[in-house]
């Protein structure tokens, strides 16, 4: 899987190089489409394939895939601002298609979702504003990369560590996963504005989900991700929500936060490319179905270990790009200081 992912990255760069040289070395069927907002012409099949590949992985691992699609679009040569805003638009679609199944099974804690959402809307609004400000400073690319390196590094490392421990344990003792204790008391329970969340069986301060929502909302705006990879662990470990409602509730609030980002980016920076988003989501929806089927054949901890490796390899690639001396030290941007 990692080889496959690296191959996608390598391939995207290869094609980008070739596009720059105006050469016809790519053996893909030549079907170019001019993206109206990104203002470059791309190969339809490559973008569909990109959406399909990421969709496959997201179906396989049960993640949104925003953290893969945004860097890949940037590697391909789509301007970072367009990549981030368009990925947010595409995540609206993938979250909507995912949330129905969870909704039918009653796996959405609506009240918790709404509280997270309030934080998320404020956070993403602030995030879009910060995005525009950083862009004018010429630091947006750096901040996007740094955010990715930090979050993918932490999450990927933790995932890999936890999964390899689980694999090791099952091999030695043949199962026996430690159960999380309910109603652990900590400083969290001393916070004011307590609220009862029946579906999750929690009685905790509303401040906590508000802050988490705000933080993840900001990440959505800055990184073009749904933020599920931060939201889900936060819900389980910080809020103590039961695992069954976590994914559905997170998808539920991601829909609205990414919709808010799409809307605000459209107004503020005009960087949402509907054509690009549509191509990505067509590929993504189909890929996700294959991924989900393929994923049911693999063990959960093996999946987590693979996902951990995948996340870490994207992180390392981005870190590598930041650390090695770039071949071109100067960059240009239309506008004024």
């Amino acid at each position, binding site marked *: 899987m990692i080889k496959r992912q690296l191959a996608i990255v390598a391939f995207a760069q290869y094609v980008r190089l070739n596009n720059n040289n105006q050469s016809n070395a790519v053996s893909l069927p030549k079907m170019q489409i001019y993206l109206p907002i990104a203002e470059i012409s791309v190969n339809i099949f490559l973008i569909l394939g990109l959406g399909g590949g990421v969709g496959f992985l997201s179906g396989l691992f049960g993640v949104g895939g925003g953290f893969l699609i945004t860097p890949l679009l940037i590697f391909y040569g789509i301007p970072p601002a367009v990549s981030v805003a368009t990925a947010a638009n595409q995540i609206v679609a993938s979250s909507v298609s995912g949330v129905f199944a969870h909704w039918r099974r009653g796996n959405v804690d609506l009240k918790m979702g709404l509280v997270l959402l309030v934080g998320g809307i404020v956070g993403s609004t602030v995030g879009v504003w910060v995005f525009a400000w950083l862009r004018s400073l010429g630091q947006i690319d750096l901040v996007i990369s740094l955010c990715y390196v930090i979050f993918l590094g932490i999450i990927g490392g933790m995932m890999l560590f936890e999964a390899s421990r689980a694999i090791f344990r099952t091999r030695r003792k043949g199962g026996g996963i430690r159960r999380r204790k309910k109603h652990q008391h900590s400083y969290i329970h001393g916070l004011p504005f307590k609220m009862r969340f029946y579906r999750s069986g929690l009685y905790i301060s509303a401040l906590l989900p508000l802050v988490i929502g705000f933080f993840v909302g900001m990440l959505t705006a800055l990184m073009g991700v749904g933020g599920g990879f931060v939201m889900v662990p936060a819900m389980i470990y910080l809020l103590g929500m039961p695992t069954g409602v976590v994914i559905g509730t997170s998808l539920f609030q991601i829909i609205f936060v990414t919709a808010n980002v799409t809307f605000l980016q459209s107004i503020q920076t005009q960087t949402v490319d509907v054509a690009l988003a549509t191509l990505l989501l067509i590929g993504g929806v189909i890929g996700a179905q294959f991924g989900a089927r393929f994923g049911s054949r693999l063990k959960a901890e093996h999946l987590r270990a693979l996902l951990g490796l995948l996340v870490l390899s994207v992180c390392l690639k981005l870190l590598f790009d930041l650390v090695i001396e770039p071949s071109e030290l100067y960059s*240009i941007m239309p506008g004024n200081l």
Partner: protein
Amino acid sequence: MPFSPHMFRIAFMAAVTVIAATLPLKNSRADALVVDLSNHLVAITTGFTGTDVLLFGAVQNEGDIIVTVRGPDQDMVVRRKERTVGIWVNRESATFKNVPTYYASASNRPMDIIANDNVLRDYRIGLEHQRFIAATDITEVDQKAYRDALVRNMQNIGLFNQRPAKISFLSNQLFRTDIHFPANTPTGTYMINVYLIRDGRIASVKTTPLVVSKTGVSAEVYDFAHRYSALYGIIAVIIAVISGWVASVVFRKG
């Protein structure tokens, strides 16, 4: 593609014949210069991957030809990365005023042989004679470094040409050259100057405009996104919600 090379050739020969026939009548001076383009409009459609525009013309008496193509001006910020705590970060920057968004030149022989440097500088012919001066207060050394970086970056994205293109003469009087516009060509009105040079001095100049504009669906989408951005955002969200919903319905049974 609406124009095949074959059609170009026919159109070119026909036009040149007409020009050649009318040339002595229209202008009896020795510096007569006639120029035209195969197309005065470059239309960026959904399938646009770049295009060539044929420039052709005729001179009455022998001379050298230089062609310059300049896109609409824009201010540009150039940023320089420096290693900061181990990573490469944009630090210093400089603004350049009125930088053409596109620049290309062509000549039948090397420009420095055709005309002397003063002439090229006075008429700002060729990339090296463009007056890019950073509006930011920086040292002479930096001034040059930033200017070179600006040119280099524009060349890398294909909007400045690497070296002057070739103008070919069919006889001593008829000439032609292809002007290439890449897929990322900016929109706007371009000015094409054609210089007739004799004895190192400019004998005649012809200026002709060329319009690059988006047409069709991509133009409408772009226009809509900029003019009704709130509505565009709402529509983008609605499209995503509907396609997500359709996907969940389609794959529910499967």
